[in-house]
């Protein structure tokens, strides 16, 4: 709830109940201001819910911090700058993403053999990043940063991957490349994923399930065959309801 007790009081999410099954790839669509991002932020812990519970494998994490939840959840933000540390090198960013637990250990982070492993990870992106491990991330392009963010988010094999309009800030071609990469990684690693998108085509093309958020509630939840039978115009029509 935002601004309780004032004229601006607004329930962003109300009575939202969503069960995410293992292996689901859910596209989340809805109007601007409908509460999609709030939903994702609440799940990730950036925003705290006033009431209710969030269960992750039968464990209520509603009171836990972002960093605690990050052991099971990863996130890619809309802004490519958000998902990576610009002053640090590509390799250092990958080290950070690798372990969400040993963040305060006094062991050296520059281990032998790590370099080759990172190069192998970066090669499939086909962006030449494997030769730029030492480059500070702030010198990479938006597309490269976002591909790196995506790779970093999936490196720890999270139980839940949250994608918040992660292709929205990219040009059409890069956007498509990153989307293909997403689909590939999600399928290969069998990651449970929630993806917010404003592109109806992406929402229909990718994933096995689709939910629509309107006015803080989930107004549509289709999966499997029902989802395949949906088409773009039908969906846009539903926005008006």
């Amino acid at each position, binding site marked *: 709830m935002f601004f309780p007790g004032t004229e601006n009081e607004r329930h962003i999410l109300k009575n939202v109940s969503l069960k995410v099954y293992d292996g689901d790839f859910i596209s989340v669509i809805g109007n601007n201001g409908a509460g999609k991002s709030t939903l994702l932020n609440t799940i990730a812990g950036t925003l705290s819910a006033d009431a209710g519970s969030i269960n992750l494998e039968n464990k209520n994490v509603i009171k836990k911090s972002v960093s605690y939840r*990050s052991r099971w959840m990863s996130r890619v933000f809309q802004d490519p*700058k958000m998902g990576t540390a610009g002053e*640090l090198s590509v390799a*250092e960013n990958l080290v*950070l993403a690798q372990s969400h637990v040993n*963040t*305060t*250990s006094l062991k050296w982070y520059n281990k032998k053999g790590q370099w080759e492993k990172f190069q192998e990870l970066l090669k499939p992106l086909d962006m030449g990043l494997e030769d730029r491990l030492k480059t500070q991330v702030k010198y990479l392009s938006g597309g490269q940063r976002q591909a790196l963010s995506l790779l970093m988010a999936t490196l720890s094999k999270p139980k839940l991957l949250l994608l918040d309009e992660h292709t929205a800030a990219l040009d059409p071609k890069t956007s498509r490349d990153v989307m293909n990469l997403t689909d590939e990684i999600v399928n290969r690693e069998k990651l449970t994923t929630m993806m917010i998108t404003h592109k109806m085509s992406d929402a229909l093309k990718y994933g096995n399930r689709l939910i629509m958020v309107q006015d803080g509630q989930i107004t549509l939840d289709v999966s499997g065959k029902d989802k395949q039978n949906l088409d773009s115009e039908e969906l846009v029509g539903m926005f008006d309801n």
Partner: protein
Amino acid sequence: MLISSLGQGLLWAPLVIGVFITFRILDIPDLTTEGSFPFGAAMTISLMLNGQSAFIATLMGFVAGCLGGFVTGVLDTKLHIPSLLAGILTMTGLYSVNMHIMGKSNVPLLTQKVLTDYLPDWATEIQTIILGAVIVVIVIGLLYLLFKTHLGLSLMATGNNKDMSAANGINTDKMIIFGYTISNGLIALSGSLIAQSNGYADIGMGIGTIVIGLASVLVGEIFLRGRNILVRLSAMVVGAVLYRFLLTVAMGLGFPPDDLKILSAIILVIVICVPIVRNKLKTRKQLKLYLSQLAEGEQDEQDGSIKHTKFTKGVLSGDRE
């Protein structure tokens, strides 16, 4: 003159490194400095007057500063007080604490052995340089090792991108508190060393230390630049020494000691402006060169295109930092 500013500069170096940790690594201008510097001095001198050895007293000075930094860190992260205000609050509070420790506003040492007295019987300036060098090497060595560990990497990541760090499992509050703590510990260590070198602790000795620290950080970065942490830390020592040298020159020109504070402030303004002006001049020069090459290219159209591509690259890479 050079020798004495070298020695003094080395004693001030831990303060500059401390300011570097909050200002550059965590990206926070931390005003606790003004309180933790005399805190270290007061702690050390009082303990020595009470019969403790200079080693223990210096170490406790460091610990005292850590405590001050810890308080600011908690105010900033757990109570969500803006970092600038959190620093001011701790600094103000420490004034009273320091008065309680010292009992009066100026406490001189009597016949106690200070750290330099444990060295062979050389000239005081040489002793100061040796002591300063040993301490600087230890501090830089330990910090260098720290920044090679996961902990150090987490600290750097937190200062650079807090959201991303939290999303990667780093407890950013803890990291910020940790940064404040070691930073102020080092600042207090400087206070402790300066007090021993001067032979007294004074309640007003912290005034202007944040300006001195920031100016030294920037002076150091003007002369020594790089991404390697060892280079960056060494630059802080260079900055501290050069800054002392600048002040000694000013004193030699006949400025009274009371004017040193305004000189410090002016130096800080200048060193903030130098990199900005330098970048502007560089860009203008490169643009001019580029335009003149373009004009040349038009006259000589055959290999003009090759020249262009070559040059654009040069401009881009020269623009970095």
